[in-house]
C-alpha cells in the first residue's frame, strides 16, 4: 500500500514523509496540487491513503476530494489543512473526506491519525 501526500509546500511534504516513515510507511508518492492528485489516484489501487491539503494552486484539495469521489474511488482521504473552522470541516466531510487534521499539528497528532488510517482492512 502507498500513501499519497498532496501539498504545494515541499516542507509540508517533507514533514509528512518523515512522520510516515516513523510509523513504518515507506511507500510514499507526492502531488503538488489537487489536479495531480485526482490523476494519480484514478485507477490506482495501490494508493491506500491520501493526505490532502486544502489551499493549493490549480485545484484545491476540496475540489480534488469531490472529483476523486465522483470517479468512484473510495480510498480514505485525510484533510491536512489550516482551514480549521467547524463549517469547513463539515464541508470537507460532506464532500467525501474521511478525516481531518488541522495545522499546526504535533508529531503525536499526526502519528495517531496515521495509525488510525493505516490499519490494514483485514487487521
Amino acid at each position, binding site marked *: 500500500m502507498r500513501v499519497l501526500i498532496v501539498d*504545494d*509546500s*515541499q*516542507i*509540508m511534504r*517533507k*514533514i509528512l514523509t*518523515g512522520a510516515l516513515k516513523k510509523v513504518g510507511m515507506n511507500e510514499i508518492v507526492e502531488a503538488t496540487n489537487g489536479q495531480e492528485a485526482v490523476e494519480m489516484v484514478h485507477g490506482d489501487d495501490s494508493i491506500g491513503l491520501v493526505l490532502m491539503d486544502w*489551499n493549493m*494552486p490549480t485545484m484545491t484539495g476540496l475540489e480534488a476530494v469531490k472529483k476523486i469521489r465522483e470517479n468512484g474511488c473510495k480510498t480514505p482521504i485525510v484533510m491536512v*489543512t*489550516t*482551514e*480549521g*473552522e467547524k463549517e469547513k470541516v463539515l464541508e470537507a466531510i460532506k464532500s467525501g473526506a474521511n478525516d481531518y487534521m*488541522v*495545522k*499546526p*499539528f*504535533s508529531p503525536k*497528532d499526526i502519528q495517531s491519525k496515521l495509525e488510525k488510517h493505516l490499519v490494514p482492512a483485514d487487521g
Partner: protein
Amino acid sequence: MKAENINPFLEAVSETFENMLGCSVITGEPSVDNETDTQNTPDIIGLIGLSGTAQGIVAIRFPVRTALRVVGTMIGVDFKAVDSSIIDGVGELVNIIAGSAKTKLEGHKIALSLPSVVRGSLYRLNNLNNAVWLSLPFVCDMGEFSLMISFKPTVVPKKEAVNACANSR
C-alpha cells in the same frame, strides 16, 4: 487594533512553535506604525493576504540565521544557506500561523491568499488604506523573529453587532 484581534495571532505563533518545533516563544513589546522600520539585516519575510470580514496582511520576518534554524528544525536538516526549502518553509509557517489565527478570530469570516516570500537587506513594508502595522517581536531558542499584522475589519463582527444593537435600545 483591538486586543481580541491580537490575541489570536499571539496564540497562533505560540501553538505553531510548540506543536511543530517543540519550542516555546517569549513575546516582546508590541509596536504600531504606518510602515515597518527600514531593516538593514538579511531577512526572509513570509506574507499572506487576508480578505473577508477583515482585510490585511500577516507577515512573519526572520533574520536569515533564525530562518535556517527554524526551517531546519521543522524537517530535521542542518541548513547552512538559504535555498528553496527555506523559502518554502517560511511561506508555510506564515500560512499556518495566519490560518490558525483566523480560526480563533471570533465573529469574523476570513479567507487567506496563497503565501508569498521575499528576501532582502534593505526594505520597508508600506500599507494601503491608512492601515497600520502592529509588530509583535518574539524570541525562542532558535533566535528572534517578528510577526507584523495589518488588520482592518470591513464589517462589524457579529458579536459586536449584537452588542451595538442591544446598546441602541
